[in-house]
């Protein structure tokens, strides 16, 4: 099966999530949020969201409670470091 079917005459790339595969497989540790400490979870309203702000890979969602997409989370631990309520552990 040849590659002409793609109809490209030059290097033209299209956007998609997961370009580098399931980058969640890169990680050694995984973030866990403790909702009893997490500010938006406790207040039950949009607030803080500092973890979302600082995530380099945009895998955190500003939902209540906060959701982290573990398929693409690289386990960098920045969210744990920046959380003002110390509500995140890396396990």
């Amino acid at each position, binding site marked *: 099966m040849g590659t002409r079917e793609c109809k490209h005459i030059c290097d033209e790339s299209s956007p998609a999530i997961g370009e580098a595969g399931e980058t969640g497989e*890169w990680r050694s540790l995984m973030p866990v949020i403790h909702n009893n400490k997490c500010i938006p979870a406790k207040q039950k309203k949009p607030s803080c969201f500092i973890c979302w702000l600082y995530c380099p890979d945009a895998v955190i969602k500003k939902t209540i409670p906060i959701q982290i997409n573990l398929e693409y989370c690289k386990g960098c*631990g920045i969210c744990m470091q920046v959380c003002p309520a110390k509500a995140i552990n890396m396990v």
Partner: protein
Amino acid sequence: MKVNAVNLTEIEYSLPGNRTCPGCALALAYRHILKALDGQVIVTVPASCLTVLHGMYPITSVNVPCVNTPFASTGASATGLVAGLRATGRKGLTVLAIAGDGGTHDIGIQSLSGAAERQEDFIYICYDNEGYMNTGNQRSGSTPLGAITGTTPILGKRQNPKDIAAIMEAHCLPYIATANASYPLDLYEKVKKAKGIKGTRFIHVFTPCAPGWQFSYSDTIKIGQLAVETGLVVLYEVEDGIFRLTSASESLARKGNLKPIREYLAEQGRFKDISEEQVAKLQDWVNTRWQCYLERASNLQPSTDTI
């Protein structure tokens, strides 16, 4: 209303699952740069870590139109995009050139300087990880004194870095700013402000690199903050020639003392062999520059002593 983590848009232009290292400050900075431009942008990128972030043919991890360009040519590539858009009657798009310190301070400085002198209408962002990180950390014109890199493996870098923001100031640009991935809201606001200004706008963004600088990748934000707290990185903007300190540098100028540079150096493996003489030289350099900034700042009285 001032932007914060709650009201900042949830739209992501930089998509999850890209090839950056865990804890990459560039990835963080890029997220917010694109948010500030509402994705109404054509990006041009030279050879750099950002090229790798963008992915590999035929898939890209970024949801904005983008043009890759050879290493030396970023300023010219942006010029071509601006000229082409104007010639074909397209309006409303920002042209964003975004290059690393290699593509800005060194191999790319000529085309950047040429474009800036012509006052071409685009935003140029230099993300500075203080070395040629994409090729495994070789010294660049922005590598700090005493840093071990692949090409300064034993003696460490023997010179201070060039001050690219000062070089760009010499081009009489309408807007020049320094920013830092550890202060994403400050970065966001600066990019947003730049968006509304015509002419060549230059922003220098400090982006610590965990594998290159040898610190734990969860510490990226902390390292960036320490850089500001020690005065090594100063957050400011120059708008129509008027100099203002911003964000944490402004607070520091008003009420704090600079932390000793040692605190910053101690956190990074690349400074493990730095000599006492080099530390003293570096501290002097930081102090002198800090004094200059304090005197220049139009938005505060020169107040604090350094250590």
